[in-house]
């Protein structure tokens, strides 16, 4: 494989780096400076920062529970993509198999729901 194939990529990276450096360095000099409370706060994700519990900056355990449940159920979706791509050729067989898979996931979901895993309070 010749190196010439990589030239456009290198050029793109260089341009991107230059542009980033340029905008970061020049902005403080030419931009207007109007500060307010929101602008001075630490940036987390655009939403108001989560109020931390008194006596320390630890998050309530509920966040972890919800996050773990979210990860587990979210990742199950991965199996739906290849099925969706090959849906036509898999036909009824694939449909039934996927239905069985979803039923199995739903069993776990029912357990979480009934035992209060989804209750916030």
């Amino acid at each position, binding site marked *: 494989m010749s190196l010439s194939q990589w030239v456009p990529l290198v050029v793109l990276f260089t341009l991107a780096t230059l542009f980033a450096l340029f905008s970061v360095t020049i902005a403080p000099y030419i931009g207007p400076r109007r500060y307010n409370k929101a602008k001075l706060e630490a940036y987390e994700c655009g939403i108001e920062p989560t109020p931390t*519990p008194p006596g320390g900056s630890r998050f309530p*355990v509920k966040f972890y529970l919800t996050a773990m449940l979210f990860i587990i159920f979210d*990742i199950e979706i*991965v199996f739906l993509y290849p099925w969706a791509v090959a849906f036509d050729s898999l036909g009824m067989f694939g449909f039934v198999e996927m239905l069985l898979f979803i039923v199995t996931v739903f069993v776990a979901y029912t357990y979480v729901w009934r035992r209060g895993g989804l209750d916030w309070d």
Partner: protein
Amino acid sequence: MHPVIPYVLAAMLFGAGVYGVVVRRNAVLVLMAVELMLGAVNLVLVTADATMRLHTGQTLALFVIVVAAAEVGLGLAIVLQLYRLRRSIVTDDVGAEPASAEGEEEPVKVVA
């Protein structure tokens, strides 16, 4: 094309993961190091697919992702539980005390 670069990269990632598991003393970081190792596995699988024009490896990679997620969910639950017991997830401390010290544990107030 000989896929030496991805294989070497995967080996380095895997090595970094092994190093992390061996050196790190924080259970969550150990878990992250294991995830790094699984990332290396996925890289090898996809590389093998790309060079040999196969599909099995990609399927396997999906399974690896899903199982890794389940593993992390369960692992975080165990780590969290231990943290609530001991206020520490430093793996060196695990099992450092004899079983009889159990009664002396301060009850941990759970923030929830």
